[in-house]
C-alpha cells in the first residue's frame, strides 16, 4: 500500500467520522429548545424525500426505469408489504421490464 493513499484514506475517514459522532457529544444530556427538537423530529421524513428525489430519475438512461420501479415500490409499500418484499419486488419487476424491452 502506498503511504500517500493510506493517508488520504485516513483523512477521508476522519472528516467523515467527525460529523457522524459530533452531535452525540455536543447535545448529550442537553434539553434542546422545543422548536429545534421539533425540527429534528422532522428530519427523517424530509431526508427520505430528498434522498429519493431527484436521484430516482437518474438510476438509468431510461427514465421510466426509475419511475416504474418507484411506482411498484410505492404500491407494494402502500398495501403493507415488508420493506424487504418492497425491495425484492422492485428488483424482480425491473428485471422483467428490461428482459421484455
Amino acid at each position: 500500500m502506498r503511504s500517500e493513499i493510506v493517508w488520504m484514506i485516513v483523512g477521508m475517514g476522519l472528516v467523515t467520522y467527525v460529523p457522524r459522532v459530533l452531535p452525540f457529544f455536543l447535545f448529550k444530556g442537553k434539553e434542546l429548545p422545543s422548536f429545534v427538537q421539533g425540527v429534528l423530529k422532522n428530519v427523517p421524513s424530509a431526508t427520505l424525500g430528498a434522498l429519493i428525489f431527484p436521484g430516482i430519475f437518474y438510476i438509468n438512461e431510461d427514465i421510466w426505469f426509475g419511475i416504474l420501479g418507484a411506482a411498484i415500490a410505492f404500491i407494494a409499500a402502500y398495501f403493507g408489504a415488508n420493506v424487504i418484499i418492497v425491495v425484492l419486488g422492485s428488483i424482480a419487476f425491473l428485471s422483467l421490464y428490461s428482459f421484455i424491452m
Partner: protein
Amino acid sequence: MNKTQSEFRKGFQSGVSIAIGYAPVALTFGLLAKTTGLSFGETVLMSLIVYAGASQYISLSLLTLGTGIFEIILTTFIVNIRHFLMSAALNEKCEEDQLVNKAVYSFGITDETFSVAAMRDDTVTTGYMFGLNLISYMSWVICSGIGFLLGASLPQTLQESMSIALYAMFIGLLVPSMKKSVKVVCLAALAACFNTIFSLTNALSTGWAIVIATLLSAVIIELMEGVKNKQRGSKGEK
C-alpha cells in the same frame, strides 16, 4: 435471549434490505477502484475506514483527474457533512447509554442506516444500532473486496435492476408513515421539491443540497405547524 441480544437481532434483520442494496454499489466500487489503480488492500481499507458510498466514488474520479489529496479530503468532508444532521436527529431518538457506545455506533451512520433507524416506531437501542450497522458494514466491505477480486460487477441486467434497491427501500420506509400522517407527506414532498430544484439548477453540490433541502423542509413545516397550533389555541380560548 436477553433484551440486548433480541434488539441486536432485530437490527440485523432490519439491515437485510440495506445489505442487498449495498451489494451492487460496493461491487462496482471495487471494480472501479481496481481500474483507477488502487491495490486490493487500499480498496478494502477505504471501505473499512471511510464507509460512505458517494464520497468513495467521488474520490476515485478525483484520483483519476490527478486531484491533490487535500482537495479530495475536503470534498469528502463536504459530501458527508449531511451526516451531522442525521446524527443530531438520531441523538433525539436513541436510548440513553454510555457515550462510548454511541461513539462506536455513530461510525455506522449512513443515509440508509439512518433512514431505517429513524423511521423505527420503537426507541432506537444500542443493540439495534449494532445489529443494523454490522450487516450493512459487512455487505459494504466484503462486496467492495469481491468487486475488486472478480474485476466484474453483476450481469448487466441484474446490475441495472438492482440499482433500484436502495430507492425502493427508502420508499418502503416512507410510505407507511405517509399513510399515517399528512405531515410526513408534506415533509417529504417539500424536501424532494427543494432538492430537485437545487439539482436542476446546479445551485449546490449534492452534499449540501440534501442538507439544505432537508433543513428548509423541516423548519418550514415546523413553523407552519406552530402557526396552526397557535390559531387552534386562540380559538379554544374563545
